[in-house]
Structure formats: structure tokens, C-alpha cells
């Protein structure tokens, strides 16, 4: 089959690799019908998440049809049309039973590495480096999925792939980030980053009762899309974000602030340069936490900072004084995708959230390296790129399934 493969920092290739096989009785093989490139794939591509090994198959947002199941799979059947949540739930550990599926105790086959870096190991994640298990990802024609009964989520036939694909990651991630904002009626929420997660954060914040949402980015097309979802916007290259947020909120600051940017934030000034220099070593600092710093500074006293942005290691100069003296709450986490699926499916079916709006590019799998490039550099107005693993490179017409 064809798959998108990491061959080193900034080297993505489409290669022919062996078809996946059932390796455990609870596995299922999915014929991938649609997959997407996520912002965190860029951190992997850029080599900022440790433990990528060349030859790894990427992709943690994918869906398709079940074509084979292991002998112990009961609920999921061959022929089911499913989405595959990116964190892997075993379905039985205490965390999974609490709905905290991204913290699963049992799904990471390689937990010692995560424990070395983070103290404890969270769930395994598809196509997301060896620290989260080293599972092959779904930017491929077929994918092996594990603990199928606990993870694969059957989607209704009357919804298109494009309507449900983002349930695998960016939509629940934006939603959980908004939930983590602890919104109360009338609240003002500010969101750093108007990428897919930030945009779904805007939509979700409104669904959860925010009165106003302020979206902060530097790309006009992203800000325009945030406005289409109902947000007010700030372009941080044109305005002083801190001052503008104060002005927009009567001097108080937003009730909650979301960092939907993560470890590769753009920053000007001395601190930004220092971050960039330290980050190139991957040791002195592994993050550029500018958005997190700004979020803490901007949030109103007693407010909440929500962090869906991905961080991997160590960050410098976090304003803990501001954080403590202003009595802020910090809420974080990889998304517990499973717990939001029914709710969000309902929002999609009732037209309250339209996930397809963020799609700007539809490419064949062969074009994935180009997709990574334009997404990374925000060329061509790229906000979200989805890939068709069966489209022919030249025609983009779906080719027949394997016999």
C-alpha cells in the first residue's frame, strides 16, 4: 500500500510499504477513505517531538471502512464505516472508564520512554512518534487499529466523510479546549491561534455559552474564517494583543484564554529569539511557549487558561508570578476524544457546527508532501488539508478498492 512516511526532519515521502496485518486478537484493519494533516504533524515533521524514527508512517486523523477484524472483536463488523479517534483507549483501565481516554494506562506499548520524559505515560496515539507508542498512522491506504471495540466509532451513512472526519481529533480538541475554558454565560473567551483547533474552539465556545470570542492570529484568511464562525479578531502583527484585549474587555481581560498554538509559536522580541535559538538544540529548550506566556498575561484575574496546543518537553520563562498572583486556573490535556463523539455528532447533524468549512485543500495521498509544505508555511491560504488515499495522483479520481 501507499503511505506517508517520515524520513527525517522536514522530509516527508510517499512510499510503498507492506499492508498492515492483524497482530492482536482485538485489532481491526481499516481501509482508509479519508485522512487529514494536523498541526501536530508539523511538530513531528519538524523533529520537535522526540522519538520519531525514519520510516514511521504518520497520520492520526483518519476514517474508513473496516475490512478485517481479529477473532476477539465483537462489536465492530467488517463493512462498518468508522472514524478512528487519535488517542487509543483500552476501554477497561480506570482512566478509560472515567472517560479520560487520552490518559489510558494500557495502550502505549512503549511507556518507559514517556515515563522518563513526563513522569507517567499517557495513551498510545496513532502516527505520533515512539513516545506515544510508535503506532503506524493512518495517512495510508490501510491502517491497523487496536482495541477496535473500545475505539472505532461507527458514523451514520447520511453524513459525508468530510462532515465526520474531524471528529477524530481537531473538532473534539477544539471542543474540549472550550470546555476547559470553564465558560459561564456572558463570558468573553480569547483564543490564540486560528488554525483548525482554534477555529473549532471558536465554534465550541459559542455552543458552550460564550457571549464573545476573540480570535488572535496573523494570517488574514484564518482571521476571516474565525469571523465567519462569529469571532472578533486581532492580527498580532498589526496590533498589540495585550492592549487590544484589555480594551475589548473593559480593562478586565478575557475570562478565559486558550493557547491553540503550542510549541512552535511565532514570537518577536528578545524572548522569541532566545526561544528559537534554544529550541534548535532540542535540549536547552524544546518549546517556543510564546502563546502560553501571552495567554497567562492577558487572562483576567481569577480566569482560566486552557491549553490544547501541543507541548513536548521543557519551556523557559513561563510567567509563574502572573499565574499565581492573578489566581489563574490552568486546564490542559490531549483530547479525550471518545467522550465527546455523541455530543459532537449531534451538533453536526443539527447544523450547529459545520466542520467542513475549514477545509481549504483536498489532495491525493501522493500530494501529501506538498500538503505538509503549504500547511506549514500557510501558502495558498491553506488552513486544513485532507487527503484521499485512493485518488490517482494526476486525476484525483478515486481508484477501485483492493480486491
Amino acid at each position, binding site marked *: *500500500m501507499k*503511505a506517508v*512516511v517520515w*524520513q*527525517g*526532519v522536514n522530509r516527508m*515521502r510517499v*512510499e510503498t*510499504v*507492506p*499492508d*498492515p*496485518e492483524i*497482530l*492482536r*486478537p*482485538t485489532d481491526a484493519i481499516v481501509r482508509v477513505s479519508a485522512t487529514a494533516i494536523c498541526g501536530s504533524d508539523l511538530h513531528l515533521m519538524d*523533529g520537535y517531538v*522526540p*522519538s*520519531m*524514527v*525514519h*520510516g*514511521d*508512517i504518520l497520520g492520526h486523523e483518519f476514517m474508513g471502512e473496516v475490512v478485517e477484524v481479529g477473532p*476477539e472483536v465483537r462489536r465492530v463488523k467488517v463493512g462498518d464505516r468508522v472514524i478512528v479517534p487519535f488517542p*487509543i483507549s*483500552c*476501554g*477497561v*483501565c*480506570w482512566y478509560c*472508564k472515567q472517560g479520560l481516554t487520552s490518559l489510558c*494506562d*494500557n*495502550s*502505549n*506499548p*512503549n*511507556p*518507559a*520512554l514517556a515515563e*522518563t520524559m513526563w513522569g507517567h505515560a499517557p495513551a*498510545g496515539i496513532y502516527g505520533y512518534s*515512539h*513516545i506515544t*507508542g*510508535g*503506532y*503506524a498512522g493512518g495517512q*495510508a491506504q490501510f491502517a*491497523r487499529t*487496536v*482495541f477496535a471495540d473500545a475505539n472505532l466509532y461507527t458514523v451514520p451513512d447520511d453524513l459525508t466523510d468530510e462532515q465526520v472526519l474531524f471528529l477524530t481529533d481537531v473538532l473534539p480538541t477544539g471542543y474540549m479546549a472550550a470546555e476547559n475554558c470553564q465558560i459561564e454565560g456572558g463570558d468573553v473567551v480569547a483564543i490564540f491561534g486560528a488554525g483548525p483547533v482554534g477555529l473549532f474552539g471558536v465554534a465550541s465556545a459559542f455552543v458552550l455559552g460564550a457571549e464573545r470570542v476573540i480570535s488572535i492570529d496573523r494570517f488574514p484568511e484564518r482571521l476571516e474564517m474565525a469571523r465567519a464562525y462569529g469571532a472578533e479578531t486581532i492580527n498580532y502583527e498589526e496590533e498589540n494583543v495585550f492592549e487590544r484585549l484589555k480594551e475589548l474587555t473593559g480593562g478586565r481581560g478575557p475570562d478565559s484564554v486558550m493557547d491553540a498554538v503550542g510549541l512552535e509559536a511565532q514570537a518577536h522580541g528578545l524572548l522569541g529569539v532566545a526561544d528559537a535559538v534554544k529550541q*534548535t*538544540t*532540542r*535540549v*536547552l529548550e524544546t518549546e517556543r511557549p510564546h502563546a502560553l506566556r501571552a495567554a497567562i498575561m492577558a487572562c483576567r484575574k481569577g480566569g482560566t487558561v486552557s491549553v490544547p496546543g501541543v507541548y513536548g518537553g521543557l519551556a523557559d520563562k513561563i510567567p509563574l508570578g502572573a499565574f499565581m498572583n492573578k489566581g489563574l486556573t490552568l486546564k490542559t490535556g490531549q483530547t479525550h476524544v471518545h467522550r465527546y463523539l455523541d455530543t459532537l455528532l449531534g451538533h453536526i447533524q443539527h447544523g450547529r457546527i459545520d466542520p467542513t468549512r475549514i477545509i481549504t485543500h483536498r489532495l491525493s495521498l501522493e500530494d501529501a508532501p506538498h500538503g505538509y509544505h503549504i500547511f506549514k508555511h500557510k501558502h495558498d491560504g491553506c488552513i486544513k488539508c485532507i487527503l484521499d488515499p485512493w485518488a490517482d495522483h494526476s486525476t484525483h479520481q478515486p481508484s477501485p478498492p483492493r480486491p
Partner: protein
Amino acid sequence: MTTHDQARRDSPQNSSPADRLLFGGLAVGLIALSVRQRGSVGVFLGAGGALLLAGAAMGEGLGPALTHVRRTEDDHIRVQKAITIGMSADDLYSFWRHLENLPRFMQHLDSVTTQDGDGRRSHWVARAPAGTHVAWDAEITADEPGRRIAWRSLAGATVPNEGEVEFRPAPQGRGTELHVSLTYRPPGGSLGATVARLLGEDPEMQVAQDLRRLKRVLEVGHEPTTEGQSSARKGPAKAEAKMYDNRRTS
């Protein structure tokens, strides 16, 4: 003697100033090297350097830091580990008390056979390098259903050893805490080699892995794996992936 008393009597492992200088220097070297290497090799060297530097700064010697071997005052090797498993203390006790089950999660064990009617005496066979085996007899010295089992090897064992496992209910429906304590009394002189034969190079890590395997076998029925999955790796590149997957990074 409780496990807490034992922990307090462990001898200190602080490294000498010379150690710290040496490994601090090595660490800086690795970091410097990592800056000049692209990709995962650079990350790897850098991470190694950072770990060494942290070790040097905190005064932990390289030997113990790498092997995690803890010795008691009388030069025994002790390993203590705990894990929480989503199962009742009674069920966990029953599983463990049926000593034949131990090789299902203790990787170095080939077999445990109970020998007489009440199952207090048992014969243990452990794997050693190059297809060889080490065998010894053991007896149960304490048996409190649902709470605690202790055992020790009988006279004649190559590496006299004893162990104890306690089952304590975990709060808020989290299941049962398993507290394991193992002590090895290696014969003088051949300490390192003999224990390595029994438990691999790193007893702490070995026991931690065994307990995690137990949790996974009991909670989900098997250990998750990526062994045999698709990738674009061939030949030597596979070894690099294995290095991560075999947890050899700390």
C-alpha cells in the same frame, strides 16, 4: 521489618565530585555534538547529554543512574515497586498465590512448580543467557489471603533471594495496589554477573516491566504491541526503532 524501614536503611548512592565533573563534561560534549547533528540522532545525543547533565548536577553517579541497582548496607540487592491494578485484592491474591502464574508476567522466569499439597514449597526455573537456566527451591513464609504473600529461597540456591507482595485496596474504585519487594543476596565477588543472569542488567526496570505486564495481562488480556506493523524501515533502520521500543533510552 516493614518495607519502609528497609528503604531507610539503603545505603546512599551519591557520586563523588570527580564523578560529577567527569559526567558533567561528557554531558556538555554530547549536547554540543547534538547541536551539530540533524534529525533523530541529534535529538538522541542531546537527550542523553541532558540526562547526564541532570545526573551530574543532582549528584547521582553514572553507575547507579544507568543500572538503578540499589544495595542495602549488607550489600544485598533490593528492588521495590508498586502498581495499581483494576481488580479486587482477593482476585489478585488468588492469581499470585497460584505461583504457576508468575512466569506469565515475570519475563526471566521459565516456570514455577508447586511441590506439595498446600503449595508452600515450590521449584523455580529462571532463564539465563545463552539458553542456560538457573533453578532453586523456595518456600512460602507468610500467607495472608487477600493481603500478603512472602517467600524465600531454600538452602542451596545459587542466588539466595526472598520476596514479598502486599495487596492493598486502592481508593475510589481504582482497584488494588500491589507492593512488591525483592531481595537478592549474591555470593561475594560475583554479584554483578550472577544477578544479571537472573534479572537482566537492570533489576528495577525488569520488575517494573513485569508488573506492567501483569497489569496489562489482567486488565486487557494481552500486552499491546507494534512488533510486526508496517513501516518504511529496512535493515539497520529497524534497530533504531527497536532502541526506542525496547525502552533503552534512559
